[in-house]
């Protein structure tokens, strides 16, 4: 059974935020004004969180890229009154934008705070409008949106493989963040497929998941820093 998942090596992450930018342009994520961002309205399905350890001058900065954890037991889908958020057979947690009523219960239920709400109708700078991704629907105001592991890429890769009459290969389907990561800190693949890199990495001694004790069973693993 395919279970799409991600392993993020915190030792390799340089905090360049290329994943954030790639995600934004890949998924047509609306841009908000600096004032709105200041007020907590920014949207970023992938966010590089920062954590400063120690006191100046002996400080280290730790980076923590955070996509949706795509839990196997997602707290968000249980609470949705209209089944607008769901988990598919391959473990990707998605959102049905035309059905969502915007109650934001899922956003409150998510312990990882990775659900984003469209407070305003979406807007983009004029220069970006030409480059919206035709494979990804834009979201209207008043609905929740979230990281989808770029599942439109999966659909495209599947079709391509079918046309070429071959099996889906690991490199065929990579979300934008993993694709663009310059240090290969983000590795993506099928957690249940032993030939995929993630299947091996998730067994690494450094591997951990966020808030594992909550029983949400996230499919995003992190490799702890060695030092």
């Amino acid at each position: 059974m395919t279970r799409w998942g991600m392993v993020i090596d915190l030792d390799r992450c340089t905090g360049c935020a290329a994943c954030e930018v790639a995600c934004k342009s890949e998924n047509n994520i609306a841009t908000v004004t600096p004032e709105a961002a200041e007020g907590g309205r920014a949207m970023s399905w992938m966010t590089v969180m920062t954590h400063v350890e120690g006191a100046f001058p002996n400080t280290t900065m730790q980076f923590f890229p955070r996509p949706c954890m795509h839990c196997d037991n997602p707290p968000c889908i249980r609470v949705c009154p209209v089944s607008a958020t769901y988990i598919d057979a391959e473990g990707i947690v998605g959102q049905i934008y035309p059905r969502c009523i915007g109650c934001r219960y899922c956003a409150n239920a998510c312990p990882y705070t990775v659900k984003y709400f469209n407070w305003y109708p979406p807007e983009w700078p004029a220069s970006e409008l030409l480059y919206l991704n035709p494979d990804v629907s834009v979201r209207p105001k008043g609905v929740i949106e979230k990281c989808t592991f770029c599942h439109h890429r999966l659909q495209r890769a599947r079709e391509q493989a079918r046309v070429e009459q071959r099996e889906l290969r690991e490199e065929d389907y990579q979300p934008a963040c993993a694709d663009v990561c310059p240090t290969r800190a983000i590795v993506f693949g099928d957690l249940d497929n032993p030939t995929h890199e993630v299947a091996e990495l998730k067994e690494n001694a450094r591997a951990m998941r966020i808030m594992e004790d909550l029983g949400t069973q996230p499919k995003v693993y992190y490799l702890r820093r060695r030092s």
Partner: protein
Amino acid sequence: MRQDVAEKLARLGPDEQVLLRPLVDTSRSFYVMAAVLAGVTLWGLVAYVLQVRYGLGRTGLNRPEYWGIYIISFVFFIGISHAGTLISAILRVSKAEWRRSITRSAELITVLVIGFGAIQPIVDLGRPDRVLNVLFHAQLRSPLLWDVISIGLYFCSCTIYLYLPLLPDLAIIRDSGIKAPRLYRFLAAGYHGTPVQRWRLERAIGILSIVVIPIAVSVHTVIGWIFAMTLRPMWHSTIFGPYFVVGAIYSGIAAILVAMTILRRVYHLEGYFKDVHFDYLGRLLLVFSLIWFYFTFAEYLTAFYGGEPGEMRTFWAKLSGPFAIPFWLMVLGCFVIPLALMSRQATRTPRGTMIAGIAVVIGMWLERYNIVVPTSVNPRWELEAIGHYFPSWVELSIMAGTFSGFILLYMLATKVVPIVSIWEIKEGREAVHEVAARVARYSGAIE
């Protein structure tokens, strides 16, 4: 008042003369008050239109502060609605004679306030146009859907429960002919007080007053569960169901006391809302202030003793952090003031209970604020930034509009139906011997 109406009124009995007077005699200050309230309600409506047009960005909500004033008001109003059920149903079932003059005003609060409470989550929706999806795509594992079912049932049963005991009074108005004969002929639904009708009516009221109690309990339990079913610190608590029910009844009694003192004054109902009513309800308020404290203490002590980092961030945010002011004001309003005033006979007067009632109503609003906001702005993941929340003028306007809309409808309702149940008062007078016999049965002379 028109001459013929005055004559008709004069021909009625003494109870009818006092209790039906508000229906036909409206003072100038009533119109002024109604106009002001209508203005505020309209203002709230304008704010809502703006919000629908431009999106929830017009509120002060953000990530992670997803729920604010609307959800607080939702919990608050549905809480107030427990006034009618408790006072009316429980007192009716337990045959407390002193209930007779206060049931109507309490039931009326219930029905009106459920409506205003139930629209709050819809106001809060990002897509109110899709609200019917909760029926078309109902997902029964969601506590929100339990709420839709529970509140729907509660609204229906409470409306019937208000209407049935109204029938004999509506028939009295119809027969007196003092007001809108056609309307009251329709509303009275052919009730003529025949023995069979009377028997059926009392039986139906008897059954309903038992049925509405578990429904009322379920409503606020489920509202508590909306929060408790998530894994958020200081929401994920088994005590929330009963805690919310207690808080709801508590705020309901307070709301009734405030309404009663005002009604007594403006409609000269001193003969019906007597000092003993305020004394008894004041005692009830005292009991609930203690129960409320017990629940709150148990809730906070458990969180504190466990000392989980996630819980403690929210805990200290409330006790000594940015939410210290609303927190301690809540303790003042929900515990200190009512306890001080209601534990003394001398201050369990109409004036004293009114002050305590207002303190509790404000305190209970703050209690809901202290449940919703501090947890929202303190996400479980410590790397996530701590949020902030300042309600925008749109939210505050809608809240003001909701409050004034409720008061306005309540005022108007006092012009349509007698605010004290005439037939139940009369029945109470006739039942004095029966009650005396009943009391004698369990406390009578030793044989």
